[in-house]
């Protein structure tokens, strides 16, 4: 024999109110949390963006400074400057009579100064930005949908 059970009583109205209020509060908390998370992330992203700009400007300045400094050094050691400095220090150009030649086995002679070799910019090494950095959530959703439709042939 089938027995049917039914609730004998309803929950008290104040409990129902508390539950609803709690639910609304929970939603509010989630909303506020996501708002602050969003604010936090975007602030960090903005900070990172600004930092990138600053670093980029610094890099440009440094490239200029490095190039300029090597020229400053060359100005300080130019042929005329070195000649004048040698003169001031009491040196005189050597003549054939001043020079004595010695036989030194394995002497390889005067070696050139090392020339700075700049970094290579290869295609593979260059920064390739993935779309995730530039896509909005809508772009991502639309694109995702189209890709899905395409793969399904519709």
């Amino acid at each position, binding site marked *: 024999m089938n027995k049917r059970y039914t609730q004998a009583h309803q929950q008290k109205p104040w409990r129902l109110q508390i539950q609803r209020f709690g639910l609304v509060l929970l939603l509010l908390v989630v909303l506020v949390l996501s708002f602050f998370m969003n604010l936090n992330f975007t602030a960090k992203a903005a900070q*990172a963006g600004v930092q990138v700009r600053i670093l980029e400007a610094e890099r440009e300045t440094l490239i200029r400074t490095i190039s300029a400094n090597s020229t400053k050094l060359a100005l300080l050691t130019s042929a005329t400057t070195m000649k004048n400095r040698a003169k001031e220090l009491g040196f005189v150009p050597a003549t054939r009579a001043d020079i004595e030649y010695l*036989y030194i086995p394995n002497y390889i002679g005067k070696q050139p100064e090392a*020339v700075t070799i700049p970094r290579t910019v290869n295609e593979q090494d260059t920064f390739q930005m993935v779309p995730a950095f530039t896509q909005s959530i809508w772009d991502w959703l639309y694109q995702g949908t189209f890709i899905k439709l395409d793969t399904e042939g519709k």
Partner: protein
Amino acid sequence: MRRELIRFYLVGIAIILFSITIVFRLVQIQTDPIFHEISEKVGNQAIYKPKEFEAVRGNIYDRWGNLLAGNSEVYEIGVNLNQVSESNKEEIINFLTILTGKDKADVKARVEIPYQPDPMKEKHAVFSTVYRNASEKMVEEIASAQKTNRALYPITWNGRLQRTYPDHRLGANLLGFYSSEGFFGVEGFYDNILSTTETSTFISMNPYDVMEIPEIPQGSSIILTVDREIQAKMEEILDRTIENTGSSSGTVIVMNPETGEILSMATTPRADLNLNSEQILAEYPTQKIDGFDVQTPFNRAIMQTYEPGSVFKVFTLAAALDSGAVTPETEFLDTGVVNIGGMTIYNWDYGAWGYQDMTGCMQHSLNVCMVWMAQQTTTKTFYEYLTAFNIDRKTNIDLDGENSYPFLSPSNPTPFGSDPNAPRWYEGMIGPHSFGQGVSVTPIRMITSLAAVANDGRIMAPHIQKAVVQDGRIRYYNPKIVATPIKPETAHTVTEMLANSLENEASEAMVPGYRLAGKTGTAEIPSPQGYVAGQTNASFVGWGPADDPKFIVYIWLEKPQSSIWSSVVVSPVFSEIVENLVILMDIPPDHIRMEMASNQ
């Protein structure tokens, strides 16, 4: 409704109304055409800014790594026009006038340009440049003044690189100069390698916009074959010689005959390359020559052709020996005059020198003997040898602006067309050609072809680039053989004969302890009216050590006044050059070199 809930609902309604008001206002702002216009105008200008990515031009070094051309930082000083107001304008103008030393009216005109942010408008102006190429010190002065005076805040500056030549005039003729693009010399020839393309793009100022920043590779650097110390010494000797001899110009080239490397190339004039392009070019004025306006060549060594005279006799001798027409011992009876193709040719002193062997002919530089030597070689073979020496073409040295003059020969008799008055080749021209008249060549052509005699008969491609620093590595230039006009034995014989001729005449070109080979050349200067009396081109070519040449030197003095003879004005210069070269190149005297070789 319970009383205590009324307040609760009222607060709720108030919050809802406030929210609705905010949303309403937001929608209103978004849709209001005035706000829309403002955001379009101001917003886009603030978000996107044009930016130029400047490529760093590559450096130029000498063979030892000394910087010959680099970049230094200069600044462009100006004012942000939107920050200029009536209250600070006068103070900015006064400050910039004192700082830059420019005329106050000029500064005022620059500062008072009306601010116009709209790029679509004709007078678009957001920044006004007041002074270009400012030094670091000037910028520091501005920064220091701005710390104490807020009125100067609108003054700002942008750094950029400017081409700088640490040695100013040193090697100016071979370096060329840079002014938005490379001109002449290495700067002109290797312009595409030294610089890379500049890029301009719009950069978003919105920090959320992540964008790829173009990466501009630096220009490649070039290491030259030139030795800075040798170049400086050659220029010093050349300048002093020109002053002492009253010559109108001069050229000295030092080359390694084994590789074709240019160790030094000194010419006059040489401008200070740190000046601006107008000032540089002003040092190479246009002159009237034979009724034509001719600009002073930037680099005479490769750009100016001239009749070289007796130094050309080396080719005639080499051709005659190599073809078997003569041997060093062949005797010639010099009567002092010869007639060829209706042209009467005399020796330089109008004298007859009697019996001479071939060394004697070279030692006394006898024109009549050279004509006979060319005739013995036969016209066809003589010109074949000159062609094999590449006399009829450019050297293709890696410097901008090389010149050549058409060579009249049986294979190219009418290079100036069929006009009967135009110069053309005829049989008699073998006469003057045999001793270097009637043929016009550049000093670089001469030294390159003559270097074959010092290098076992091989002509090497002359070059000034030793290596290129590119793509993160150094690529070295491999010396190239261009031609082999004569046999190694002939080259050795010619060197021996020329070394003997210097010793026999006790030439002032000799250097004690070193056996050298060389030949003087005194050439008359042609004009539309014939050869000019009393004016010559004095040249000298010499190489050493004779048994294993490490250098070849070519000297040309244009119109020397102290004496017209090369043996008087140029031979001592060659001697002085070699005296310095052997020290700078660490070449010991012959007997020590032999001892060292036997020790090894």
